[in-house]
C-alpha cells in the first residue's frame, strides 16, 4: 500500500505535465509550507485558459500565483473537466477548486468556500438573427438579493419568463445557474447540459440551443472573437441570490486550516488592489468583491 502514492505521483507528473504549472511558494512566517493540488478547467477564459503549449493562464492562475506565495503554499495547478471537479475534491484528488466557482447556497451544502475573490454578473447570449436578440431590459442589473424586491425587477423577471417560454438553454453540467433556472424558469425552458463550455459554445454557434446564460467575464471576450460575430448579449444581467455571492475557491468542509490561509491571502490581495489590477487586466472591468459590505454573502468560510 505504501508504494501506491509514490507510483501515483510518478504517473501524475507524466500525465499532468502538459497542463500543470507548479510554483514553489517563498517561505512565509508562521505557517509551515504545505503542498496542495488546485483543480481548474483550463477552458473558461478569461478565468483560466489552456494555451496550445499546455500551460495554464488567466485571471485565476495569475491570482493563485500571488495567493500561494502569500499563504506559503506549494501549489500544483491541474486541468480537469468541470463535471468531475466536486467529486475530485471530495475524493481528495484535488484540494481546491479554482474555476470561477460561484458561492451559491446549493453548493454550500456540499462544499466550503473561501472568501470571494471576485464578483461578476450573469448574462444571456443568443444569436443575432434569433427573435431573442430583441429581448427586453438589456443591461438592467437584477440583484436577486434585493429586499424588498423592486417592482421593476419583478416585472423584468416575468417578462423574461414570457420571452424564454419554449426555448432551449444550454449550460455546462452542474453550472452556477442551476439554482436560478430551477427557481425562475423551471417548466418554461428546456435545459441542455454540456460537459464543457467549449461544447456548449459550439452548439450555441450552430444554433442547436437558443441561448445560454453565463458569466459576463466569460461571454464578453467570447463575443469579441471573429468567429462569434453572430452572437449577442441580451436581456438583464443577474447578480446575487441563487447566482451566489461572487466567486470563491471551493474547499472540503473539514479543511479549515487551508480555508484560513487562503482567506487571509485573499483579504490582503483585495485590500492592496491586486485583485483590481488583475481583473482589469483580464476582464477589462473591476470585479473586486466588497468583503465586509455584505456580511451574509461572504459567509463562505468553513464552520468550525
Amino acid at each position, binding site marked *: 500500500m505504501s508504494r501506491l502514492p509514490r507510483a501515483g505521483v510518478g504517473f501524475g507528473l507524466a500525465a499532468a505535465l502538459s497542463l500543470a504549472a507548479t510554483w514553489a511558494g517563498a517561505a512565509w512566517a508562521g505557517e509551515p509550507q504545505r503542498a496542495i493540488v488546485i483543480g481548474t478547467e483550463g477552458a473558461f477564459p478569461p478565468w483560466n485558459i*489552456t494555451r496550445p503549449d499546455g500551460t495554464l493562464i488567466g485571471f485565476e492562475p495569475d491570482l493563485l500565483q500571488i495567493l500561494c506565495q502569500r499563504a506559503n503554499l506549494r501549489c500544483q495547478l491541474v486541468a480537469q473537466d468541470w463535471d468531475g471537479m466536486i467529486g475530485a475534491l471530495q475524493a481528495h484528488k484535488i484540494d481546491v477548486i479554482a474555476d470561477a466557482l460561484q458561492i451559491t447556497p446549493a453548493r454550500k451544502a456540499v462544499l466550503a468556500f473561501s472568501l470571494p475573490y471576485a464578483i461578476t454578473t450573469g448574462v444571456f447570449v443568443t444569436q443575432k438573427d434569433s427573435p431573442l436578440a430583441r429581448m427586453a431590459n438589456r443591461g438592467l442589473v437584477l440583484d436577486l438579493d434585493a429586499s424588498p424586491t423592486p417592482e421593476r425587477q419583478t416585472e423584468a423577471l416575468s417578462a423574461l419568463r414570457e420571452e424564454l417560454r419554449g426555448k432551449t438553454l444550454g449550460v455546462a453540467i452542474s453550472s452556477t445557474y442551476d439554482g436560478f433556472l430551477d427557481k425562475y424558469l423551471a417548466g418554461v425552458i428546456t435545459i441542455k447540459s454540456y460537459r464543457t463550455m467549449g461544447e456548449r459554445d459550439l452548439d450555441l454557434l450552430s444554433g442547436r440551443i437558443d441561448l445560454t446564460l453565463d458569466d459576463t467575464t466569460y461571454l464578453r471576450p467570447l463575443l469579441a472573437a471573429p468567429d462569434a460575430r453572430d452572437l449577442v448579449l441580451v436581456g438583464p444581467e443577474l447578480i446575487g441570490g441563487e447566482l451566489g455571492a461572487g466567486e470563491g475557491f471551493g474547499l472540503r468542509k473539514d479543511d479549515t486550516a487551508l480555508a484560513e490561509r487562503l482567506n487571509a491571502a485573499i483579504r490582503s490581495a483585495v485590500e492592496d488592489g491586486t485583485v483590481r489590477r488583475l481583473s482589469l487586466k483580464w476582464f477589462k472591468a473591476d470585479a473586486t468583491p466588497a468583503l465586509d459590505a455584505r456580511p451574509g454573502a461572504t459567509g463562505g468560510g468553513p464552520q468550525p
Partner: protein
Amino acid sequence: MMDDLSLLGFGPDGWAPLLLKGCMLTLAVSATSMAIGTVLGVLLAWARLKGPRWLRRTALVYGVVLRGVPELLVILLLYFGLPSLILSLAETFGWDAPGLPPPFLIGSLSVGLVSAAYQAEIFRGGVGAIAKGQFEAARAMGFSDLQCFHRIVLPQVARIVLPALGNVWQFNLKDSALIAVTGLSELMRTSLVAAGSTRHPFLFFGVAMALYLVLTTLSSTAFHYGGRYSNRWDRG
C-alpha cells in the same frame, strides 16, 4: 486556410505539440491497459479452467459484467468511485490517507479491467483449441504441469491468440479515447479542447481521426508480422 495551417503548426498558436503529446499519451494508456488486461486475463482464464468452484464462478461473473456494461460507465465508475473507495478503506483500517490514483492510472485500470474480461475469453479458448493429444504426449513423457504449460501450451496458444489479441489491442486503443472524460489529455481530449477553444471542430476532429488511423494502422501491421512469425510452423 492560412489560419487553419497555423492552428496545426508548431508555432505559438499551433496545436501540433499538444496533439503529438496526446498521441503519445494515448499509446501509453493503451499499452498500460493492455498489460493490465493480459496479466489479469491470464489469471482469469486460469481461474475459469482450473480454479476451485467459487473462483470459477467469480471469474465467470466478472466476465459477464465487464463485457456487458458500457466501457464509458466503467471508466466513470472508477474515476468517481475508486478514490472514495480508497479513502473509506483507508479510514476503516486506519491507514494514512494514501495518495490518490491519477487519471492516467484510473484510465488505464478501467480500460485494462474491461480488456482483461475479453483477453480471459481469448486465452481460455486458445488453451481449449489445443488438441488433447498434445497434453497427453507431454504427460506420457513425464512433463510436469508447469513444463507442459511452458513448452507445449504457451507456444501454441500464442499462435492461436495473437490475432485475437491484436483485435483487443485495437479496441484498447479506441477505448482509450473514452478516458478523455476523466480529463486526461490524451489525443481525444486534446482535440476536444482544441476544437472548443478555437471553434474549429471539423479541423481538429479530422486531424484526430487521421492520427488514430495512423496509430491503428501501424499497430495492426505490427501484429500482422508478429502473427506471421508465431505462425511459421503452421504453413503446410
